Structures are given as C-alpha cells and as structure tokens.
C-alpha cells in the first residue's frame, strides 16, 4: 500500500522545489500585476492528523491543477501549527505576498476572527472553510462540510438497520465545538429510537492509541455491544484492534467517519464484516473551496454566502466514488 | 549604641538531643569576646539563637535588660545584631551588591537605587579589603572572598552586635590583618563583638575576654591577657594537650623523586611551576588566596587545561587527562571545598567513602557487605565519630566530615595524596588527629602535599614548604628557615 521510501523522497523534493519556485516568483512579481490576475492565498492547519494531512494534500493538488488550467492564477499555500502562527501567516500573505483572494481553514473560530477581518478590510476576497468565524461579516463566503449530517447520518443508519433496537457505545474526539456539534446531532437523531441505547461516549482525541484504550475499557465494562460509533476513521482503526484482541463476537458493526481511504477500501472490498458503512467528510472540500473561489474570482463573480458540502452515507454500493488512492487520507 | 547581652538558662534540644544545657553568662558592651569550644560544643547554636536563626527550648536572652526572642534574623538585624555565618549564606546567582543589600534594598521612590547601593557596597568592600567589582556574580568568587562579602554585608547594616563565626577560616594572612583592623575599629565605635574561632593566635591578639563552652555548657571565662594558649585548649577539650603536632620524621631526600613536576602552566592561574616530591615527604604549599595553589593541583590532575609542562611519576612521564587517569597513576586530590567538591552531603557516608574506588566492590554487582566492611574499617582507622553507614554525610560534624573525606580519597590507595586545606572548619581535637594521620600516611611511604593558609600548620607539619605568589613559585623553604616571617615575606614578595 505504501510507496517505498526512495520514490517518496523524490516526490517530496519536487514538491519542495515547486513551492520554493512559487515563493520566488511571488516575490519577483510586480505589484501592478496583482490587479488583473487572481493572487490566491490558502491558509490551513499543518498535517498533524490523518485528516489535516488530507487537507494539505488536497490544497496542494488544487494549486497544481488550477495553476495549470488558469495562467492568470497564482496560489500560495501556507500551513500553520497553531492559531497564533496562522494569524501571523495571514498578515504575511496580505502584506508580503499581496494576495487578493483568500481561502482560510481557521484553527479556532474566535481567535482568528479578527485577523481574518483585517485581511478582508484590505480588499481581499475571503472564503472561510469548515469552521465558521464568530463574526460572519469578516467573510465573503463560507464553505463547510456538514457536521450535523456527520452525526445524524450514522444515527439514522443505525436506527434503520438495527430495527430501532441496539446497544451502542461511541467515541468522541477532542473537546471542541466541532465535536459537540456532531455528538449533539448523533444523540438528537437517536431520540426518535428510544430502544437504541447509547451506553457511553468518552473522548479518545481522534487518536488511534487512545481509541484502543477506551475501547478496551468499554469491552471490560459492557458485556453486550451491538454497534460502535467510532466517530472518526482513525479512531475506528484502534477500536477494531481492541475488538480483535478481545475476540468479542457480539459486536456487529463499527461506524467511523470522514471516509479515510483504508476504511472506504475495506467497505468497497467487503474485507472486514465489521466495516459496512461510513459517512463522507472528505478533506477534498478544501480542493472544492479553492477551485470555486479561484474560478469565481477569475470571472469577477461572487460565491453564495454559505455553501455546505453535503455529507453522504458511504456503503459498498457507492464506495468506489469516494476512494482516492493517491490521497494520504 | 553599645548593647548589653545576657544569656539566662538557655537550653536547646533538637528532638531529644540536648545541644545547649542551661547556658548563662553576660557580655559586657563594647568589648570583643572570644567564644571558644570544640565543634559540637554549642557555640554556633547559641549565637544562632541570639541572632534569630533558632529558638531556645528554654531560657531567655536579655538585650539591655529586656527579654528578647527574635522570631527571625530580620528582627534581630533590625536591632543591629548581625551574624556572619560559618558557611557563607549568599545567593550564587546575584552580584556582590545585590547580596549585600538583599532584603534591605535602597530605594528611590518606586525604583531601586542601584547607584547608591553600588557606591555603598564599594565602600564596605574597601573596608574589609576585598578588591572585587561590586557587580561580580557571587559564583565567580572563591570561598575567602565570599566570607569577606558576608562581613561587608554586616557593615552596611547599622551593626551594634557583630557575631563572627569562623571568619578567618579561609582568609589569607593579609586579609586576616585587615579583618583584625576592622574589628579594632568597630570596637572603638562601641560595637559589641562575639568572635568564634579555632585559631588561638587570633584570639590572643584581638579579643578582650575568652568564654569557653564544652558539651553544650558554659565552662568558664577569663580575660584574654595573661591566659596561655595551652590553658585555652585545655579548657576547651577538658584535658591536657601535650602537643598539637606529631614529631617530624627526618626529611627523606635520598633516592629519585616520586613526583616531579616541570614547568607546569595552568593558563590564568599558574606559570611554569616546578617541584619534586619524595616518598615519605610532607610538602607544603603556602601563598595568599588567589596565588594559584588550588588551581595548580586541579590542573595537575586534569580538572583544568594545562598549556605546558611535564609530570613524571617514578621517573616515567605521565599524562593525566582527568582525575580518573590521575588516580590510575596513584595521585589523589582532596578539594578545599568540602561541601561543593569533596563530599556528597546528602548521600550515605558509606557511599561517599567508596565512590572513588567503587570498582573494588563490584563483582559485578555491588556488594553492600563489602562496602560496609570498608566503612567499618575506615571508621576505626580514621576515628570517624557519630556516623551510621547509611546516614547522610551531612549529619557528621565538620571534623568528622573531613576525616571521612580523607578516608574517601585514601580508599583507592593512592601513593601521592594532595590535601587542600585539610583542617578548614575543624576543631582543635580533630585538627590534631588529622595532623597525626598525615604524618602516619607519610611515614608509610606515601608522598603528601598539604596546601594550607594556616602557616603554623605548614610549619608544624611539613618538611619543605613551596611558597607561591600570583601563580609562580617564589621560594622553597625548609629546615630551620621555616618560620612565619619567612613564609609571609615570600608570599607577599617583601623578601630581601
């Protein structure tokens, strides 16, 4: 499944060289040109989790594809390790790189509202992705995955499939509004099926190892579990290992989330009976957001103020559409 | 200005152990009182109670007639009572000025008045005769200099009762002279002074009255004038003391030297130093603080870089890159800084003893029994008193700590032993034991080097004494020429 180390290195080098070249040409470009062309900045979190790694990959793919397709377009991608760094990078993008359009995936809603507002004040067209700002007037457009559907779809799927009766344990990510939104949608949707019992929901930090531990303890604590809502495909990996170790046969299904390629492939191939469905929340939406913003700006158009990329239930029938073997996620 | 102090039935216990037992005496204002006694006699505890560092278990301290018990040293200092500690109590990371004014900073409005503090500090340093920049960090000073800073610190407080606890333990003769002048001046100003020292010549010179304590009790008092030193010692130890020093063996000059050092240079400290040492010889090193004696020997055993020089052991050249290599060739060096370099005060005594020779107790696992045997033997041989193998070395008295340190460096069986200030902070009885031990080690065929600032010690003990000044050897003195005047003249370069 993995490439060998060596061709990996070469690819990396090419990429680095490309970024360096882009940065150099950005410095060399005369400021006057910025008016007639679209100079698009992309500010996203650094790759620390499978999902954010996917974000970075899709953002760089967007840069490659779009710059090739549109000669008047220049895209600068910046990754940040935290909110303060992201704020600094926004400033650099505006003042040094002189962008006139921005696609930003904020680390935190509140902390980045002001920095983004400052960018917009300088006449930059701002598209905010995934996490909404606390003051929506700081953005021109908002494109996001559907976090409500991320929780609602598995709830409806479980209720329907198990005839309104099942014992469910679930995992949660890191205490954030994002996680709470999904959790509330999940529990809310299950209110309609009083016989589906949620036994507990503990944080496992969107991390395989923590999910493994939490699942081990669930297995100790609950003698009968029908379904696990792992709420994330990375966590689902840890959950599956814990179940495998305990050799428990009562568990019928593990439902992850986000559509990681390994999980989607397992669903597509039917290779693991515990994996039958997933909900899409692909990092590809950053690609879509960059593409929509760039193409609209090249034509001088505006985007609709809010655009929600729908989350879709992935099952064996449609899994092939959501399988991207080249993406790291 | 003068202050009258009376102790009335002072008793102090640490747990069940009584340290002071019903001590009562008075101090006349404006005089210099020597407080004598062996280590453990209770002198330090008594003055700590007076200066607010300790509380008495029973009894009262009267200041000018009124009962006083200072809860902390700060209150005592407010009354003008200042204790200069036996072991300096200064903050390493702060400058001299900052230390002098610590807790009593001068202010101008909201701000610290740095300039005034620096000026006052400089004046106080001049008075105690310490020529360092007030902005020097304490950690860059050697022990003697730190002690002078302590005294300067007392001076800038409006002092009415000054307690000096072993102030000259690490001072050079010149520095001592300055200190004595200072004591005389303060006395003339009406300051009452308590002077704790083991050096009886000093006591003879500068004090008005001698007060002696033994085993936590007041033993007696007498005017200094007309009191023989021998009598003082006898009062302190409670028995006759025939002679402090063992009889000298004849100087062993025959045969090739055991150690020959030629043109050794430790940059910044010692220049082109040459000397020889024979088996059975005790070689002294005299000099002022800063003469480079300690650094010379640290260079010799590889603790400091040497830029030139050759070292021959038994006629064969030796490259001593580090203390391990030095020990491998049979040279051990015991540092002057007992707390900081010679002993792990918080580690068990047994572990201290065996650290430099641990390989002998590993086969391959460390044998506690073997280490315990070593400890038992060392304890008997060196008469280390008050020790349990597993108790931390800090629980020993100064003299016994020093004996443990010597024992530690003898464990690897070195043939050449360098002892740097071996009797610092050690009481008379223990000093004598250490002198006899040194003589015995030499008589057994070892080469002994003693670095000391106490000239009497070098004269009483050594066959020959090398005098250093500013990193250079000024002279090597032996035989009948070994006198205080001769050594001082070379050390100060006033010879001829």
């Amino acid at each position, binding site marked *: *499944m*993995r490439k*060998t*180390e060596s061709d990996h290195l070469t690819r990396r080098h090419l990429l680095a060289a490309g970024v360096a070249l882009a940065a150099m040409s950005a410095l060399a470009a005369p400021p006057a040109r910025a008016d007639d062309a679209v100079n698009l900045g992309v500010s996203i979190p650094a*790759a*620390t989790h*499978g999902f954010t*790694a*996917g974000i970075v*990959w899709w953002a760089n793919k967007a840069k490659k594809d779009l710059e090739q397709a549109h000669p008047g377009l220049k895209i600068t991608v910046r990754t940040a390790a935290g909110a303060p760094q992201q704020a600094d990078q926004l400033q650099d993008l505006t003042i040094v790189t002189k962008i006139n359009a921005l696609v930003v995936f904020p680390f935190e809603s509140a902390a980045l509202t002001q920095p983004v507002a400052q960018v917009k004040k300088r006449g930059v067209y701002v598209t905010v992705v995934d996490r909404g700002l606390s003051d929506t007037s700081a953005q021109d457009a908002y494109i996001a995955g559907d976090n409500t559907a991320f929780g609602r779809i598995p709830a409806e799927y479980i209720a329907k499939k198990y005839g309104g009766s099942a014992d469910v344990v679930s995992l949660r990510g890191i*205490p954030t509004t994002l996680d709470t939104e999904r959790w509330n949608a999940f529990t809310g949707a299950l209110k309609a099926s009083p016989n589906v019992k949620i036994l507990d929901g*503990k*944080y496992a930090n969107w*991390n*395989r*190892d923590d999910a*493994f531990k*939490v699942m*081990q303890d669930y297995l*100790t*604590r609950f003698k009968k579990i029908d379904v696990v809502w792992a709420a994330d495909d*990375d966590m689902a990996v840890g959950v599956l290992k814990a179940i495998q170790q305990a050799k428990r046969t009562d568990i019928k299904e593990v439902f992850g989330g986000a559509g990681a390629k*390994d999980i989607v492939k397992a669903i597509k191939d039917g290779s693991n009976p515990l994996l039958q469905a997933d909900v899409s929340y692909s990092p590809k939406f950053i690609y879509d957001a960059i593409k929509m913003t760039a193409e609209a700006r090249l034509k001088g158009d505006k985007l609709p103020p809010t655009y929600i990329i729908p989350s879709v239930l992935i099952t064996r029938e449609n899994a092939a559409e959501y399988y991207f073997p080249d993406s*790291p996620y | 200005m003068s202050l009258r102090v009376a102790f009335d039935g002072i008793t102090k216990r640490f747990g069940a152990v009584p340290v002071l037992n019903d001590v009562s005496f008075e101090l006349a204002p404006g005089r210099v009182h020597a407080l004598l006694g062996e280590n453990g006699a209770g002198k330090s505890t008594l003055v700590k109670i007076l200066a607010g560092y300790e509380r008495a278990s029973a009894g009262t301290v009267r200041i000018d007639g009124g009962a006083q018990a200072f809860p902390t040293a700060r209150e005592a200092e407010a009354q003008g009572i200042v204790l200069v500690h036996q072991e300096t109590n200064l903050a390493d990371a702060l400058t001299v000025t900052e230390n002098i004014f610590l807790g009593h900073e001068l202010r101008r409005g909201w701000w610290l008045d740095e300039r005034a503090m620096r000026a006052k500090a400089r004046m106080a340093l001049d008075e105690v005769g310490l020529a360092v920049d007030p902005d020097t960090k304490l950690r860059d000073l050697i022990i003697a200099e730190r002690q002078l800073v302590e005294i300067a610190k007392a001076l800038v407080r409006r002092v009415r009762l000054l307690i000096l606890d072993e102030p000259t333990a690490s001072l050079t003769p010149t520095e001592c002279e300055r200190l004595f002048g200072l004591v005389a001046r303060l006395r003339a100003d009406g300051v009452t002074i308590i002077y704790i020292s083991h050096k009886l010549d000093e006591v003879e010179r500068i004090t008005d009255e001698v007060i002696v304590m033994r085993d936590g009790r007041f033993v007696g008092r007498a005017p200094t004038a007309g009191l023989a030193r021998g009598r003082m010692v006898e009062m302190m130890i409670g028995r006759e003391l025939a002679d402090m020093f063992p009889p000298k063996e004849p100087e062993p000059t025959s045969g090739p030297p055991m150690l020959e050092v030629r043109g050794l240079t430790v940059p910044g400290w010692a220049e082109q130093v040459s000397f020889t040492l024979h088996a059975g010889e005790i070689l002294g090193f005299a000099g002022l603080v800063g003469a480079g004696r300690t650094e010379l020997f640290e260079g010799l055993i590889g*603790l400091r870089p040497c830029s030139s020089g050759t070292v021959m052991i038994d006629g064969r050249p030796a490259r001593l890159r*580090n*203390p*391990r290599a030095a*020990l491998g060739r049979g040279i051990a*060096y015991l*540092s002057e800084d007992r707390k*900081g*370099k010679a*002993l*792990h005060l*918080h*580690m068990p005594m047994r*572990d201290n003893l065996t*650290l*430099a020779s*641990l390989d002998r107790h*590993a086969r391959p*696992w*460390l044998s506690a029994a073997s280490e*315990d045997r*070593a400890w*038992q*033997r*060392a304890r*008997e041989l060196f008469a280390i008193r008050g020790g*349990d193998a597993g108790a931390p070395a800090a629980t020993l008295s100064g003299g016994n700590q020093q004996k443990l340190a010597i024992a*530690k*460096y003898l*464990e*690897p*069986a070195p*043939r050449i032993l360098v002892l740097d200030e071996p009797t610092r902070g050690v009481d008379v009885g223990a000093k004598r034991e250490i002198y006899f031990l040194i003589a*015995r*080690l030499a008589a057994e065929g*070892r080469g002994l080097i003693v670095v000391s600032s106490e000239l009497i010690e070098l004269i009483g003990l050594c066959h020959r004494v090398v005098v250093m000044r500013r990193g250079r050897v000024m002279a090597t003195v032996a035989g009948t020429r070994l006198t205080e005047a001769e050594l001082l003249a070379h050390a100060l370069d006033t010879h001829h």
Partner: protein
Amino acid sequence: MPSTRITEADGSAGHGAAAARPWFRRMRWRGYGPLLGLVLLCVVGTALNPDFATWDNWVNVLARTSFIGIIAIGMCFVIVTGGIDLSVGSMAALIAGGEILLMNSLATSLGSPVAVIALGMVFAIVLGGLFGIAHGLLITRGRIEPFIVTLGTLGIFRALLTWLADGGVITLDGMLSDSYGPVYYATPLGLQVPVWVFAATAFAGAVLLNRTTFGRYVKAIGSNEQVARYAAVDVGQVKLLAYGLLGACVGIATLLYVPRLGSASPTTGLLWELEAIAAVIIGGTSFRGGSGSIAGTVTGAILLSVIGNVLDLTSIISVYLNAAVQGVVIIVVALLQRRRT
C-alpha cells in the same frame, strides 16, 4: 607498602548489624506515597465498577502501561543524573515509523517474515540507543542544557516522522502485521508480552540503579556533579550511557508498540514524555536528581493508567472533567509522597 590502605583481604574489621542484613531488606521503600495512592484508587475503582478488579482488565491496564513504563524506567536514570529528556514521545514515533518502513522494504527482498521482524526489532533498539547517545553527546560535549537539546529533538523527530509519512499514516504490510502481532497480543503464562518485558526491564533497571557502579555514579552525578568529577568519576561517559539507556528503552517500548496497531502517525507517542516524566516524579524520584526509585517509577506509571481506566469504566463524572480528576489524583499522590519523607 605498609599500609593504612583499606583492603578487602584482611577481614579483621567488625561487621555492623547493617552488613549482616541481606540487601533487599536494606533497600528503603520510598514508593510509599504512590503505592498508597494506587491502592486507594483500586479500592475506589472496584467500588465504582466491580469489573475493575477482573483479571482481564488488569492485563489490559498493565499491557497499555508497559510502553510508558519502560520509557519511564529509562527516564528515571536520566532524571537521577539531574537531566531530562523531552523528546521520548517524538522519538518513539520516529522509531516506529522508521521500523515499519524498514520492515516493509525488507519484506520483499528477505522473504522470511520472522527474519524481517527480528531485524526490525533490533533496528528499533539500536536507533533508540543512537538517538540517546546523540543527546548525550550534545549535552556533555556540546555543553547544552538537556532541556534545550531534547526540546529541539522533540520537534525534529516528530517533523521527520510527519515528513516520512507525508502527513498521513505509515502502515505495516498486512502479512508482516499478522506475524508481528503476537509480539504485542500473545499471552505467555497469562500475561501479554509487553507486561513481561516491562517487568524484566524494571528488574534490570532496579539492579542497574542500586547494585552497579554505573547506578551509583548516576546518583553521585545527580547529587553533586562536581563532587563526582573530583572523585574520578567519568561524568561525561556516565551521562552518555544514561541517555543511551533511555533511548534503548524507547526503542524497546516502540518495538512492542508497533505490532499493536501496525502503524505510526504524527499522533503516535504524543505527550508520552509528560506521562513518563510524571510517572518518575510521582514515584518519588527527585526532579533535582541524586536519588530515585525504580519501584516507585513502576508504581507511578501504573497509577497514571489506572486513573484513565477507572474513568473509562464509570460515567458518574462528566467526561468534560476527566482531565481535572487526573490532575487532582496526581497532586494528592504528590502530597502523600511528601508527608512520608
């Protein structure tokens, strides 16, 4: 030479009572505070959920403690010298990634999975040891504070892994994963392999710290480096070995970790350094160095994972307060510790 020298041979000197007692009786049991805390926590855990006291649960807890525990034993040595290593979590992640990449690439050329896995395991320990020695060299020869050196490598190691993984996950090939699995999941004599390795490491660590010259030198350096230097202890070499030992421990922990999930990602080993350091300190080792206890460290490590386990087994406390409960338990244990000394 006629001598005052104290030798082993002439056994005439008296034997103290202390010498007669066997060494294990004379070890001072410093682990009191954490042990008491652990017992209390177990009582509470059992009261809240009887499943806590089951064998299976204990096997789980011990197995998951073993990674942090093994690292904490190495960390104990480094902390006793007066040093610190902040990089162990990142180091574990990088070793895991490197080991998997190596094994995947060897799988095609070597064929035999057992040989590939054996090589991978040796590689993990050697790489860890080399990383540790690199730390030691920077600290002793380079004269840089351990905190700074390992803060630097903390970033370097994790960034290297993220780069190798292209931000994603490095996964062990399926066939290798199946053969390697037993190294984590197999249960010889009823306990998982990592638990046995943890126990063996703890025993070896205790012997090394208390019964060898190296252990004594480690304590002597931490207690006062100058005194040790003057007593002819090769301070640089001892420190180098202590960091190398910790690195090797990280390697051992990693080679046990990899078969569990068969993957390494940028979140592998996240915050392990804090857990390992916490285990050592909770176990009664002084942060300033000079003395330490392996038994205490083991207890501290188990205590830390039991807290999480008890919280997972109940839902009487809001999940939002989990971290607070952990904090309170840690502080209470530290207080117990202080009382007893």
